[in-house]
């Protein structure tokens, strides 16, 4: 293995927890990742030493708090290779970041009949805001279809993009792990005169991400899937599109001046950060970026490709036709997310048995109902990997699958 997983596991205090005397097997990182001690310590240290509100006080700890917040932003900027800190806007999560784009940029620049192109792989967070915008402006939604093995079918891309104003798509599917050809799609969108928006929530934690190499206009992702805390997400935007986007929420922090007649908003990125920002969370997210950088994102990816290959091979060898794993079969074009069905056992029943084995796996539609309809399933069980998983974890899940098979053997 390219990562020293045994030593990485020790960085994550929760993974040391035992329930009923058995270790915890956490395979739900596409949902949320566990947090290393380094992140927890950074947040605790901030609260213990420097807690104050930011961009206000003239006293020492207020300066420190401001420095902590902006230091977190600088680490995120470096982690995704954004050109400047002003291109990194903090939001509550990726969902809020995508809503910001649809509600503020979309409402200002789109009107009835304007085509917005999405893909069938999308998470509801990159669907519903556009439905909401369609309800108020009458934009037209178009969909890039998926192939049976869960890749984007780009056969008709030119036709779909003809006249389009926006292409908004996921860099990595949260259901199937599919990695999409981001640079090609961004270029195609720009050639068609459309804005390119990337939902990178599953990509940034697992694959080295360079937003400038992508060339996208907006990139959204969340902190809690990349070893960071909940409550903080990121909207990256180029100067051009961020300047052309009206403020989203109004309030303190985002203003230059307020009179009884109106307000002037402040500069980037604070123009989009109304109210007290998630300061400790920014500290935690910065520490998470440091942690992953320390492991090396190329090593992280290599580890996950190897473990993905092992997972696909071992589950298929052990269960044969009894198991159906959706998505691409080639580890090089997918991340470590496995949506699967086993015999005709409902995913809820399957993961209920898993729970008896302390195997944490999600069951359901994974907030991607249009994709589930295309796959012809209501629900799947979904296991997902991260830096702290190893082949023992996969074997433990396989044992749990077998136990479920025995329990529900009719």
């Amino acid at each position, binding site marked *: 293995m390219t990562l020293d997983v045994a030593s990485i596991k020790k960085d994550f205090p929760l993974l040391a927890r035992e*329930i009923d005397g058995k270790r915890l097997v956490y395979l739900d990182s596409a949902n949320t990742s566990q947090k290393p001690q380094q992140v927890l310590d950074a947040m605790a240290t901030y609260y213990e030493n420097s807690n104050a509100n930011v961009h206000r006080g003239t006293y020492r700890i207020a300066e420190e708090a401001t420095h902590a917040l902006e230091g977190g932003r600088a680490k995120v900027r470096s982690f995704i290779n954004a050109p400047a800190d002003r291109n990194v806007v903090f939001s509550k999560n990726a969902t809020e970041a995508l809503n910001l784009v649809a509600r503020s940029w979309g409402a200002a620049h789109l009107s009835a009949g304007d085509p917005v192109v999405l893909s069938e792989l999308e998470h509801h967070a990159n669907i519903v805001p556009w439905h909401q915008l369609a309800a108020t402006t009458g934009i037209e939604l178009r969909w890039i279809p998926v192939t049976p093995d869960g890749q984007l079918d780009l056969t008709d891309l030119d036709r779909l993009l003809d006249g389009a104003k926006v292409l908004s798509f996921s860099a990595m599917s949260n259901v199937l792990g599919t990695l999409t050809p981001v640079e090609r799609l961004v270029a195609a969108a720009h050639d068609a005169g459309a804005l390119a928006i990337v939902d990178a929530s599953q990509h940034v934690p697992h694959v080295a991400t360079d937003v400038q190499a992508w060339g996208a206009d907006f990139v959204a992702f969340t902190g809690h899937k990349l070893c960071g805390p909940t409550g903080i997400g990121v909207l990256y935007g180029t100067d051009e599109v961020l300047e052309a986007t009206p403020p989203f929420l109004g309030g303190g922090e985002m203003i230059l001046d307020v009179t009884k007649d109106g307000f002037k908003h402040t500069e980037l990125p604070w123009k989009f950060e109304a109210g007290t920002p998630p300061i400790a969370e920014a500290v935690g997210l910065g520490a998470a970026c440091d942690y992953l950088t320390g492991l090396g994102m190329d090593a992280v990816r290599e580890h996950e490709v190897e473990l993905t290959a092992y997972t696909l091979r071992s589950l298929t060898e052990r269960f044969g036709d009894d198991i159906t794993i959706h998505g691409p079969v080639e580890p090089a074009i997918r991340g470590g997310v496995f949506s699967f069905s086993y015999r005709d056992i*409902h995913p*809820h029943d399957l993961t209920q048995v898993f729970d008896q084995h302390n195997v944490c796996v999600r*069951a359901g*539609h994974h907030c991607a109902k249009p994709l589930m309809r295309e796959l012809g399933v*209501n629900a799947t069980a979904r296991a997902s990997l991260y830096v702290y998983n190893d082949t023992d974890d996969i074997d433990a899940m396989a044992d749990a699958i077998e136990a479920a098979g025995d*329990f*529900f053997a009719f």
Partner: protein
Amino acid sequence: MPGLEDLYREIILDHYRSPRNKGELESPPATRTEGFNPLCGDEIVVYLELDDSSEPPTVEDIKIGGQGCSISQSSASMMSAAVKGKTLAEVKDLTKAFKGMMSIHEQSLPGEGAGKEEEGDSGLGDLEAEIPEDVKLGDLEALRGVVKFPVRIKCATLSWNTLAQGIEDATS
């Protein structure tokens, strides 16, 4: 930690294996009502045919469509068997009794730790007293264990909520 046998009682697995009243009814005259569990994506369809000639009206026929987990499917199967031929008033009492049995732990979520669980169990007795005395839950009693698995309560109540909506559709 409650064990699997607390949840998956034999009678539940029996209804899951051989669901009663599975299928469709022609609609109209029957009403067709869909129910969704937004957590897992399960969908259930309740086809309901009422006999209006009797007073109060009775459930003439009921069929269950859709798909779901063992808990939602067995609950729907048991429900269909329990309400067929019953008056709407009886169905209402049965629904109240069943949902009473299911709602108890929803109040004591997340149900972590032994203390909480005991609280829930004693509460169960209290709520039982509110259930109409002449209501016999019969097979449905087997679903009582579901309350120890709070996430699954919605699986068990999906068909009942859909039935209630169906009755509203059919009588409005």
